[in-house]
């Protein structure tokens, strides 16, 4: 089965879906709802949410490394204001801002 086409390019601004469904989700809680920038496309991988339910997770979904500003992720962040954190997030958890 053909993988889902990538929608985002490096440098594009995205927002992580702020949702808390049941099931096995790889998008960390702390990053849901945050805004970041696409750093790179990592490839396409079977959807872990479906793999966890013993299905094949196909078509494969694009996975991105997304870069966020630490001070926007953690309200009480005390480090440098340029500090970033990279999180790998599947395309279906991202929307263009």
């Amino acid at each position: 089965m053909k993988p889902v086409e990538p929608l985002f390019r490096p440098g594009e601004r995205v927002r992580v879906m702020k949702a808390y469904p049941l099931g096995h989700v790889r998008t960390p809680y702390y990053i849901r709802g945050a805004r970041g920038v696409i750093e790179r496309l990592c490839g396409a991988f079977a959807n872990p949410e479906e793999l966890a339910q013993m299905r094949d997770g196909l078509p494969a979904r694009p996975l991105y490394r997304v870069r966020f500003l630490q001070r926007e992720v953690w309200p009480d962040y005390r480090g440098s204001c340029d500090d970033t954190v990279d999180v790998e997030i599947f395309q279906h958890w991202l929307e263009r801002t």
Partner: protein
Amino acid sequence: MGGLPAGPVQRTEHEYAEWERRVDALMVLLSGVFGGKRLMTVDELRKNIEALGPEAYDAMGYYERWVSAIAQTMLQRGVITTEELARKMLEVERREAG
């Protein structure tokens, strides 16, 4: 919870909220007792309520446990996906926020 000491049974009747009635109806429909397709069994409901863990079990109300277990069963059976559930929850949240 099964096997643990508990106080006396509260025998007071109470009104059900509309959403609680809907959850009950949902279970009836998904069980296929009126001839529809059977999409879950009461045993799956129980299995997924037991899988909530003691903390969530205590914190949730009776029909909250039901609706959580029903959603879990639908995910396990592939009737809905986690992604669809996430998007629907967002849609409802946005609708309620006006």
